[in-house]
């Protein structure tokens, strides 16, 4: 079926056998690519009614046959483009990733309706929230086009084959709405928040010039097809080579034709208004049009970046002058057949706008864009709480985001939702439209909205909370270093380099080992620890690629330090710590990948009081109004500040859930003028027992990647475990993350020379707990000398039977393997890969091993789990999370009391 077209139907059924299709989705990538890795479009574009109704009948028959009596399902089809032969290829008898997408694409909340169906309602009894007068027993009609584009993170997993196939590899996705496919595609590409232009440029060529290479589905194939069309290939040639349906190739070719037309001009003032309008209607950004004006020949693409940027601004100005302004339209489930009451909006360039702004004062909250490693749903949690807080405080809460996987993009989270790319152009236009505007909240959505601060400030748009300059101080190492010395807070030696040569000089001054990273990135992208000049040279090349035009930071690496994270809220007068977390892995492992525990279990009170003191000094000095996160390292009795982020951090939800204090909500209220006193948050909250956060790593999906933790963040999720004792909390967190700690069996130990003496204590503990120990020869000899029984086993390089054989045979139940240095030893890599493949719990740091032993000990001494609802904790001051203004969210509470009953009009 390779090359067949792929379609999905999102369907629902109730207990009366009423059946509806919520959304037909077409995959742009043909069969062979996981639908999560495909660019998908709704509604289906290349089916006649007969063909579509055939899919609908089949979906209904499949749902019957599988026995889904109520709820949602997803049925996937392959259709042969040559003769229409249709096969069902998959069905998911549950809500799925696609149902989230379909919900956002249509305004029909599938999961919510499925829940109501599950408790016995029927579709005709449930009201359609959006139209209010109609019921959920209908099929949404879409008068726009939705495009979903996956977001990958292959740069985080070097060595992994970027070819797409049946195993899903993307880590997030964006969705965009336009009136046409072209518009939604280009808006979708803008939403991806790439660190480069969303259209092909000479700086980032992905196509090798051979049509045959378009056949291989890769993350960047769309750009390759685009380049091929620019180079003069016909859409038919591209369609034939890629097996992407010719209809989509023609759409892309029409974009290229428009690009050529624009590129024939060289100044914004010469651009005919009709052509500019056509470009905007096709979804091109002002900056894209500017680049085309600068370029002249799209096949060559030689426009200098600064000229392109200047022309982009000129295009924006000319567009405004010509009144070519965006219009806003409502996602209403019914193609305008009925009036709608939920302002869920998208932009286009049509003849008239809908849903005019209200007279109320507004707060705009910028979401985080696509999920990616280092910027995930933690930030969405914060945005959602901010929206609720703003509604309660009497403002109109307006959300801007483009991620269909989030709660922030539910139509009932905010008063008004703009499903739009988070770019200066789109956000700026919304700010301009939504007057009176109290301000914009940028500190909850991660780095994406922070990157918009500069253009928004330049456009005169008020930023709420922490002043924009404080963000700059925190992120500009020079200014940050000066501030730290003024505050007398130690921070590691550091330097900035703008070139590889400068990097070498700075590193020598700071002293090896050093941490290198580009400025202005989240998630440790291209961050590394280097031990010598040779490694440095290799890594700075990568770093400059990841952040072109930016500088590279070089920090002293505090080896074997303890790391501590602090989340705090400040109102300009007072800094209140929300939680202090100790990392379980030592410094050098990215904080997002490290397990951590709240409260700290191994830090002296003296150091804790220093940490609290430093946090307060920094928060007041920066003038933080809202959230801040500070990372510390403790080495040789000195507390160093590693990093300050005057914004929501990814640990905010964890701290909030552990302490019962809704930090994001409080911070949002502070940002609109409340003091912490008024909000009743004056002390660091007490913590009941221990809360352990553990990272969830995607190594199982990326076989062949060495499962070693390092400064580059690679986790894609996290879990939390609670216990009265540290070991219990840790064990629960492991269990939640999918690793069941063994209570008996065989442990394999292989540690580097630095870790041998520390590993000895662990070996003894494991032996006392009754575990059988096996180890590689060096480690075994060391352990045996201390009188702990251990059996030697061959390394892989020593031949069979070796340790990987034992892992494969299921004879190993826990692996402790610490790698040496940044370049993983190939033997170690083979062991870790085998551990991932065969699902054996793997510990790569001694501190994690110590925590695991602690957990095993606890588990062996207790019978069953202690279970407690978070709401039932004693002494929590903020039960239910409602502090500050208590104006109830009227629409929400109305719905809570009256979940659905439709007004029966019969």
């Amino acid at each position, binding site marked *: 079926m390779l090359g067949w077209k792929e379609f999905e139907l999102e369907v629902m059924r109730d207990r009366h056998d009423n059946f509806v299709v919520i959304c037909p989705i077409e995959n742009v990538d043909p069969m062979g690519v996981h639908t999560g890795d495909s660019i998908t479009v709704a509604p289906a574009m290349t089916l006649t009614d007969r063909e579509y109704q055939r899919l609908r009948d089949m979906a209904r028959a499949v749902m019957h046959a599988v026995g889904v009596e109520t709820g949602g399902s997803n049925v996937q089809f392959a259709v042969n483009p040559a003769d229409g032969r249709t096969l069902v290829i998959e069905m998911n008898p549950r809500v799925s990733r696609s149902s989230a997408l379909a919900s956002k694409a249509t305004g029909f909340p599938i999961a919510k309706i499925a829940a109501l169906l599950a408790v016995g309602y029927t579709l005709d009894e449930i009201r359609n929230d959006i139209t209010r007068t109609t*019921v959920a027993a209908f099929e949404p009609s879409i008068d726009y086009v939705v495009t979903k584009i996956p977001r990958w993170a292959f740069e985080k997993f070097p060595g992994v084959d970027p070819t797409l196939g049946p195993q899903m590899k993307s880590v997030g996705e964006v969705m965009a709405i336009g009136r046409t496919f072209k518009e939604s595609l280009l808006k979708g590409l803008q939403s991806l928040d790439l660190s480069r232009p969303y259209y092909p440029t000479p700086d980032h060529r992905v196509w090798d010039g051979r049509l045959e290479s378009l056949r291989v589905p890769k993350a960047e194939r769309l750009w390759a097809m685009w380049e091929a069309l620019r180079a003069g290939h016909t859409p038919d040639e591209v369609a034939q080579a890629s097996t992407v349906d010719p209809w989509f190739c023609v759409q892309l070719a029409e974009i290229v034709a428009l690009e050529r037309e624009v590129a024939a001009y060289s100044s914004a003032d010469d651009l005919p208004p009709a052509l500019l309008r056509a470009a905007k209607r096709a979804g091109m950004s002002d900056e894209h049009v500017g680049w085309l004006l600068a370029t002249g020949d799209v096949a060559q693409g030689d426009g200098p970046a600064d000229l392109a940027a200047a022309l982009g601004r000129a295009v924006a100005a000319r567009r405004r002058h010509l009144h070519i302004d965006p219009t806003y339209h409502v996602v209403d489930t019914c193609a305008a057949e009925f009036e709608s009451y939920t302002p869920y909006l998208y932009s286009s360039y049509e003849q008239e706008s809908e849903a005019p702004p209200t007279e109320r004062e507004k707060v705009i909250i910028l979401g985080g864009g696509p999920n990616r490693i280092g910027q995930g749903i933690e930030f969405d949690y914060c945005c959602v709480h901010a929206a609720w807080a703003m509604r309660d405080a009497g403002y109109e809460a307006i959300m801007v985001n483009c991620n269909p996987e989030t709660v922030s993009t539910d139509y009932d989270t905010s008063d008004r939702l703009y499903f739009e790319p988070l770019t200066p152009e789109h956000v700026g236009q919304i700010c301009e439209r939504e007057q009176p505007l109290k301000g914009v909240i940028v500190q909850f959505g991660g780095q994406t909205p922070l990157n918009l601060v500069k253009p928004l400030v330049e456009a005169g748009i008020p930023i709420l909370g922490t002043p924009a300059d404080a963000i700059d101080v925190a992120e500009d190492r020079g200014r940050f270093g000066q501030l730290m010395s003024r505050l007398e807070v130690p921070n590691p030696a550091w330097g900035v380099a703008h070139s590889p040569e400068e990097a070498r000089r700075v590193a020598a001054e700071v002293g090896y080992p050093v941490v290198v990273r580009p400025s202005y990135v989240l998630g440790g992208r291209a961050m590394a620890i280097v031990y010598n000049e040779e490694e440095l040279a290799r890594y700075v090349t990568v770093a400059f690629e990841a952040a072109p035009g930016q500088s590279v930071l070089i920090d002293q690496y505090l080896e074997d330090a303890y790391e501590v994270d602090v989340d705090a809220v400040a109102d300009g007068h007072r800094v209140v710590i929300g939680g202090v977390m100790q990392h379980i892995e030592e410094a050098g492992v990215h904080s997002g990948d490290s397990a951590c525990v709240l409260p700290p279990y191994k830090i002296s009170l003296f150091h804790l009081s220093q940490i609290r003191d430093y946090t307060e000094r920094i928060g007041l000095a920066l003038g933080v109004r809202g959230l801040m996160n500070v990372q510390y390292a403790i080495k040789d009795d000195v507390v160093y500040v590693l990093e300050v982020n005057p914004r929501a951090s990814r640990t905010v939800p964890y701290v909030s859930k552990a302490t019962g204090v809704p930090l994001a909500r409080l911070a949002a209220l502070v940002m609109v003028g409340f003091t912490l006193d008024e909000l009743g948050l004056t002390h660091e909250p007490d913590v009941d027992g221990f809360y352990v956060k553990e990272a969830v790593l995607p190594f199982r999906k990326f076989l062949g990647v060495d499962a070693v933790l390092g400064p580059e963040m690679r986790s894609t999720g996290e879990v939390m475990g609670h216990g009265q004792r540290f070991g219990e909390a840790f064990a629960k967190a492991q269990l939640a993350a999918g690793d069941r700690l063994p209570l008996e069996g065989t442990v394999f130990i292989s540690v580097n020379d630095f870790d041998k003496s520390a590993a000895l204590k662990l070996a003894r503990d494991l032996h006392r707990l009754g575990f059988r120990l096996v180890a590689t020869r060096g480690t075994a000899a060391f352990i045996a000398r201390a009188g702990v029984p251990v059996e030697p086993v061959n390394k892989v390089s020593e031949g069979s039977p070796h340790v990987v054989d034992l892992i494969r045979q299921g004879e190993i139940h826990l692996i402790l393997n610490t790698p040496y240095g940044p370049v993983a030893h190939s033997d170690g890599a083979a062991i870790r890969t085998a551990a991932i493949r065969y699902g054996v719990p793997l510990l790569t740091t001694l501190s994690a091993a110590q925590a695991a032993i602690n957990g095993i000990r606890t588990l062996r001494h207790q019978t069953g789990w202690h279970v407690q609802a978070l709401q039932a904790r004693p002494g929590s001051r903020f039960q239910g999370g409602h502090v500050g203004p208590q104006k109830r969210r009227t629409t929400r509470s109305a719905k809570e009391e009256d979940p659905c009953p439709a007004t029966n009009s019969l």
Partner: protein
Amino acid sequence: MATRGTQGPSGPGGRRIWHGRAFGALGTRPGEVVFNTSMTGYQEILTDPSYAGQIVVMTATQIGNTGTNPEDNEARRAFLSGFVVRALSTRISNWRATLDLHTWLAHHGVVGISEVDTRAITRRLRTHGSLKGIISTDEHLSDEELVARAQAWPGLDGVDLVQTVTCEESYHWPEPTSPEWEFRQWQPTHPHRTREPLPLQFHVVAYDFGIKHNILRRLVSHGCRVTVVPAHTTADEVLALAPDGVLLSNGPGDPAAIPYAVEATRRLLGRVPIFGICLGHQILGQAFGGRTYRLKFGHHGGNQPVKHLPTGRVEISAHNHNFAVDPDTLPPDVEVTHVNLNDGCCEGFRHRHLPAISVQYHPEAGPGPHDADPLFAEFIEMMRTFARDAKSHGE
């Protein structure tokens, strides 16, 4: 292609001119502007004779993607006055396609316009109700002239459009839904689960008030031998054909403007089982003594929820009607069986004693979902029972 103006809805909201890009035929045509929310099936919509006299605005934005093919026509030609879309595909992609939409429309003499804000037009129709409009490719006509022509157009109320679309002579229809496109039934109890066409057991005379081919195909697929007769055929002429049942088809325009059809139906009532669809439903309603009324902007789309009151089940169905039967004007012997969940409008009824059923919507789909196909089986059952009873009475 020339850019040209089209006079969009005029009326309570004042006139409004929309400029777009021409496709299809050249010309100037007035019509009643309606919107259709189907996301698929533009070819079936274009060839549905019920749209005679109307300018159809598609709310789905990408139109023409799958071109046109010889299989999906619902009538011998297109009867509508104009076709309005947001984005027309220049390139077609479908294995059955033979012509692109622009060429096809030109061939059928339909004037099309694209690149207009179809959502704005739809919202206007929703607010003001169906409006008179005019679509033109003639750049010599001024806006004022176009507006004047649209206003001078008499509209559809009271106009018999059926005679412009009905066939001239009766004919036999032999073709079932082809096995490839046979509706797949999901209900275990459905009498028609196999994909083999049933033996032709019943002779149905189908009145052509603007009949869609899919009604004929569904009748054959359900086991009927079908004779199609022109709209003016009298009851006696129908009965002379010795039918087991009579189908009253869909069709265009004002149901109150075709008294001859109501009269024929009244004479057939009780003498032969009757199944009415769309206009046929409105004719049957009048034959029972009921009255029809104009809906604000009608139902045109493939996603309308209709509740079958006896079972409580909901069918998602294809609709195309500007008028409806007022259930309060029906005699007590007529029971409302189907209602629309969106607006409560009467969508179907049956006579408690006589063999007559009808629905306001389209169980034949084409385009639209197949949920209501069991109505054809119900018609078959009605014919079977009637024949059996007649036989036992005869004995």
